[in-house]
Each structure stands twice: as C-alpha cells, then as structure tokens.
C-alpha cells in the first residue's frame, strides 16, 4: 500500500523522497506528484537564467539524507585531492552548479525517484478519517506538501514596461542595464552584466546585508531554532519579515568587480531605472501561502491557523490541526518557514524531510 504522498516534484520533494528511502520505505510506498520528472528542472532553469556557476550553500547543500558525506567529501574522493574537504573545513567550499546537478542526477537514479513519480498536479487536499484525500489519486496517511515558490515577484510599476525581464527568466544583457533588487540574484546579475560590458545601475530600496548563507548560521540548527520556536506569533512574523531582507555573501570575488566597474563609471546605485535599455527584476518570488492555490484552499477549507503570510506550523514542520499519531500533514520548502526560517534552502528541506520520516516511522499503522 502507498502510505506516503509527496505533493511537489521539485528539490524539496526530491529530498524528502530520498530521506524516506533512506529510512527504509520502498519506492512503492511513496507517491510523488509533480509536473516534471526532473526534480532539478525548475531550479536549473532559474540558475541558468542568472548564469549561476556556484552554489551559495556549502558542503551540506545537497539532497542526500545524511549530512556526511557531503559534496566536499565526495568531490575530494572523486578527484583524489583533499582540497574540497580543506576548503569545506574553512567554510570556503562552494560546489559548482554542475557538481550539484550531477549529484541530483546520481541520487535520482539511486533512490528510485522515477518509480515513485506520478505526473499530476494536485489541486486540492482534503482531510478525511485516517488520512488525506488527494483529489483523484486516493487517500494517504502521511502527506508532505512541497509546492515550491508561488511564482516570480515583479514590481507592479514595471508590469507593463517592455524593457523589464525577471532575473529568473532567460535573457541577454543590453548596453545599459538596471538591476532592481539587492539579494543574491541581483548581485549575480550585476556581475554578469558587467562581464558582458554593460553599464549597470543598481536600483534598490535598502542596502543589502552581507552574510555567507541566507540566514545567520545558528538558525540552521536547534541552537538558534529553540529560541525561534519559543517566539510568540506576532514577534515571529516580525522576525521572519526581517530575515527575508536581501543579502549576498561577503568576499573579494563579489566586491572587486563592482569596485573596478565603479571606478570605470560602469556601476552605480540609482533611485530609478529611468534611462536603462533593460530592466532586470531580481526581486525574487511572490511570498505567502495566499499566492499558492493549493495552500490557500487548504487553509480556507480546513481553518488552518495562519500568521501574517505564513501558515502556522509545529516545530517539526507539520500542520498541528491536521496531524496526529496516525496521520501527518507537513510542509517543506518555502511555505515551511514558520518551522524553519531557511526552509527554502537545501538544509531546510532536509530539516522537514527528517521530521517527516520520524513521523512516518513512529506511526503504528504505516
């Protein structure tokens, strides 16, 4: 019998699937519902659009269920050099995008992902006695929803501007480029456009923070999470809003090209993209469950608790009102930030996956 369903066939769903397989579930016990059998397809398209070459994540940024061996150890073994491990020990290891995609491909084959995958879009999840009914696909005791980001965010004032393109959509670079935004994608686009010889105007409302990972490191483990989980809802909303401000890593490889271009008069911070030939919106994704039809419907039909734009989750990423000893409804990826602020990172996906596996393993009727 298929006991577990994963709604969403992206990297979050893929990570959860690999973790369940590691936990002893057969491919036949897991059903994955998604649009594309390639779990990296959506991510790869975005990475290619911004010409991303390296991951922001470090050695732990992978989809394997255990943190060891990470990508650094595997690369060191494959290339027979201690370099990646030594760089990882100093937090200087960033796997290349190719390295990451190759690992996804290997894990896809090894985990039997394709045997569990069903090409289908789930539009509605309904709680029923003993589980959840996924419209037209039956009832499952344990369901994890990983729908990904609910679309790209564009400034409304640029909605009809023919010069505007989103950073995560394929695009060339014009002679005069304005990049709206100040996060990782924006920083990557500054560099890309400068490399092609463009003049770049950085349009931003605030100065970006500089940090190696999306969030301060303690928030990736129980050390920081214990305090986060103990924070009252109103404060937690404020905290999540604050944490979602744009940032990109510190380091010469980012600063040096910008400084050089600034000296040459090819890079400047501007208030508006007025005279640009092209406007690249590095403004990330729409935020909040309200933009996702499946989640919005789930909240409306089942009276699920929410706070601000977030669905209120238990610390283990489950929806408290719909989870008990015999059934589980959990979220992973971007919508799971209430449980793990960096839920849309690979480490965050693993956090939700591990918690889901614990739930499934403990269930007496799995």
């Amino acid at each position, binding site marked *: 019998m298929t006991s577990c369903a994963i709604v969403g066939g992206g990297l979050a769903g893929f990570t959860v699937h690999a973790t369940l397989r590691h936990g002893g579930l057969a491919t036949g016990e897991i059903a994955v519902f998604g649009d594309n059998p390639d779990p990296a397809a959506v991510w790869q398209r975005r990475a290619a659009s911004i010409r991303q070459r390296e991951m922001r994540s470090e050695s732990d940024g992978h989809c394997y269920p255990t943190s060891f061996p990470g990508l650094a150890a595997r690369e060191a073994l494959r290339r027979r050099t201690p370099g990646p491990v030594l760089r990882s020990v100093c*937090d200087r290891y960033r796997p290349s995008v190719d390295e990451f995609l190759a690992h996804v491909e290997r894990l896809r084959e090894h985990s039997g992902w394709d045997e569990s995958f069903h090409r289908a879009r789930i539009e509605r999840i309904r709680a029923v006695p003993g589980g959840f009914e996924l419209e037209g696909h039956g009832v499952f005791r344990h369901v994890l929803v990983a729908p990904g980001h609910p679309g790209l965010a564009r400034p409304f004032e640029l909605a009809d501007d023919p010069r505007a393109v989103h950073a995560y959509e394929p695009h060339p670079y014009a002679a005069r480029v304005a990049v709206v935004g100040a996060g990782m994608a924006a920083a990557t686009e500054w560099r890309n456009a400068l490399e092609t010889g463009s003049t770049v105007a950085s349009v931003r409302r605030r100065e970006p923070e500089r940090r190696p990972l999306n969030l301060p*490191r303690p928030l990736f483990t129980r050390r920081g999470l214990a305090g986060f989980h103990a924070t009252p809802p109103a404060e937690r909303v404020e905290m999540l809003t604050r944490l979602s401000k744009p940032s990109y890593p510190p380091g010469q490889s980012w600063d040096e090209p910008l400084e050089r271009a600034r000296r040459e008069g090819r890079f400047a911070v501007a208030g508006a993209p007025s005279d640009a030939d092209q406007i690249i919106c590095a403004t990330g994704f729409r935020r909040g469950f309200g933009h996702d039809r499946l989640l919005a419907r789930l909240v409306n039909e089942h009276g699920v608790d929410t706070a601000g734009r977030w669905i209120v989750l238990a610390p283990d990423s489950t929806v408290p009102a719909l989870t008990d000893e015999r059934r589980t409804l959990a979220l992973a990826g971007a919508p799971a930030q209430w449980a793990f602020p960096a839920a849309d990172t690979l480490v965050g996906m693993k956090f939700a996956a*591990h918690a889901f596996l614990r739930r499934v393993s403990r269930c007496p009727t799995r």
Partner: protein
Amino acid sequence: MSYTLKGRLQSRLATALLPFAAACVLAGVLQAWWPLALVGLMVAVGLALEGGLLHRLLPYQPGWVALPLGVVELLATMGLARALSVDAPVRLALAFFVGSWVVSQVVLHAGLPLLHLSYAEDGGELGRAGLVVAAVAPTALALVVGVAWTTQPPTVHLAAGFHRGPIVLDRAQTLEGEPGSVVRGGIRVLADDVTVRGVTVLGGEYGIDVDGAENVVLEDVTVSGAELDGIHVRRSTVTIRDCSIDDLRSPYAQGIDISFGFDLGPSSVRRCTVRGGLEGIATHFVHVELEDNRISSTQGRGIAMTEMSMGEIEGNEVIGGLGVGIFCGDYSHCRIDDNTVRRTRPDMASGDLTRLGYAIQAHYGATATLGANSVFESPGGVGAVLGARLERE
C-alpha cells in the same frame, strides 16, 4: 556547526567512547593505569572547555577551529597529567592523545552524522542515543574508578612506638608509619609496588633491604645503626626521597647502595641525608638519578656511580669526605652538574694516588660530563685517571 550545549556535551562523550575502549585495552596490555587516567583527563578537559567556554564563545564553530582547540586541549591535558603525577611516558601519551583526537574528529564529522540522521540540525544532540551516552559515561567512569580503587595496594598503618623486625613485605602494599613509629631490626621488601613511608628503622643487618622488586617507593624514612648498608637495593627499581641515614656500624657499609638493575627501569634518590659510611651513595650497573642529596663524612667516596652505571648526579652537597667526593668509575657515563663539594681530605694512609682529596674524579674508562659544579678546599680538585675522560657541557 552551531552546537547546543547539550549537543556539545553529548557529542564530546560519544566521541570519547572509542578512545576509552582503546585506553582499556592499552591499560590491560601495559598493566598500567595511565591510559585510563589520561583518557579521563582528556574527557574532563573537553567537557570543561565545551561547557565553560566554547558554548558561549562560539555560537557557530567552523571545522578548522578543531585544530587550535586540539592544541589547547593537548596542553591542558598534559599539564594536568603532570600536576596530578599521572605516570605516563610522554611520547606514548602524546601518541595516544593525537590518535584519540583524530578518531574523535572522524567520529564527530562522519560517524555521528551517519548514525543520527538529524545530527547537524539538532546541534550535535543525539536524541535517545544521547541519553544512553550520558548514562554510559558516568557508569564507565565509576567502573574504572571502582576497579582502580579495589586494586590499589592496601595501606598498613604502623602505630607510634617500637615494633620488632625484621618486617618482611612480600606483597604490594603501603606501609605508613605514624609519627613516632620505629622498627627495630630492619625492613625487607620482596614484592613490587611497595611504598614505605614515614618509618624510622633502627639496627638490622641492612636498614631497608629491597630485593627483586620494582616500583618501590621509600619516602621520609630514617635509618640508623644498621650493621651493613642503610638502604640496600638489588635487582630492583626504587624511588627514594627525603630519607636520613646515619650511624652505620660497619666500616664497609654504604649509606645507600643500588646495584645490578640496568636492565630494569631507572631508580632515583632525592633529598636524602647520609652521614658516614664507606660510600654515601653507591650505584653499580644501574640507571639512576641522584639529586639534591647531602652527604658528609664518608671514608671511601661521597657519591660513587660505577660499574657501567649511567645517570645524573645533580644538585648534591658532599662535605668532609675522605679520598674522593664524587666518583664516576669503571666505564660509567655520568652527568655531574650543579654539585657543591667541600673539604675532601687526601687519604694518605691508603697510599693510593687516586685518593688524594679529589672533589670530582672520573676513573678507569668512565666518562664524566661536567656542568657548573662548585669545589672548595679539596686539594685533588677535578681529575680523570686510568683512561677516564672529563667532558665539559
């Protein structure tokens, strides 16, 4: 990784399990307690650092920090081992520490994440396994301390007053004299791991006779009126400290004689006072350290390291001896440094030209390496005879 406090402590205890097992095996093989004492100190230092310092100082701990921390832990552990007199050979102890550190790092970064799926996000906490580890660690400690306690040699207290000797110690034990305890007729030590402390010995053929015994400690003992040697050691290893010997009856008696144990471990004599005797301290074919002793009024030599002995003669005071103050003879190798020799008298009656009041003498093929010694009123001065050599540091 960003460890929680619980995670730090649990991880530290978990990574100590393999070194602890290795220490148990090593202790069994070497028949020594130091591996267990060392691993205990390593764990104690580690836990103290984790709980007292690192948790507050390092909200996030990058991997490379393990290296400088390892050096700090090494220094703290070895310093504590020295302060607590853990009797560990330095090279072996260093090798054990380094090996344990490497194993711990492998377990920490590879083993625990493989065994406990959410190890990284749990901040080093081990879930149920952590509770087991937390229970096993004090149990193991109690077990080791218990075994160490029960296998310690018993202590026999000698009450104040006179006791009839000779007392024969033929099994491991500590003989501890209360103030005023006196043994008439000598003490014989015939077993390993014997300690004699705080006892006065009167008479006896030898005051204290140690024969075929290793790891013997004679501490704060007084020997007086022995018919032959004050302390007589054969084929044994001894540590003698803070002793006093006088009133030897035979003109051929030595204050302390340690002989024929070169194939055993080194012996030592420290802070002892010997008055009279043919030789104050004599050693034959042993490896020995003689430090900070006070020898006076000897009739043959104050200190004699001879018959292919090897060792240090350092910080001693030799006063009023007849013939020779410090003697290094018969192919021995002696390092002689920081000693003071006064008033060594020529032994004219012997007609022996090698006994003309030498403060320090190398004799018959011996090599004496000299440091900064002080010589006063000794007409023979410092010299080498019969193919012996003097070398300066």
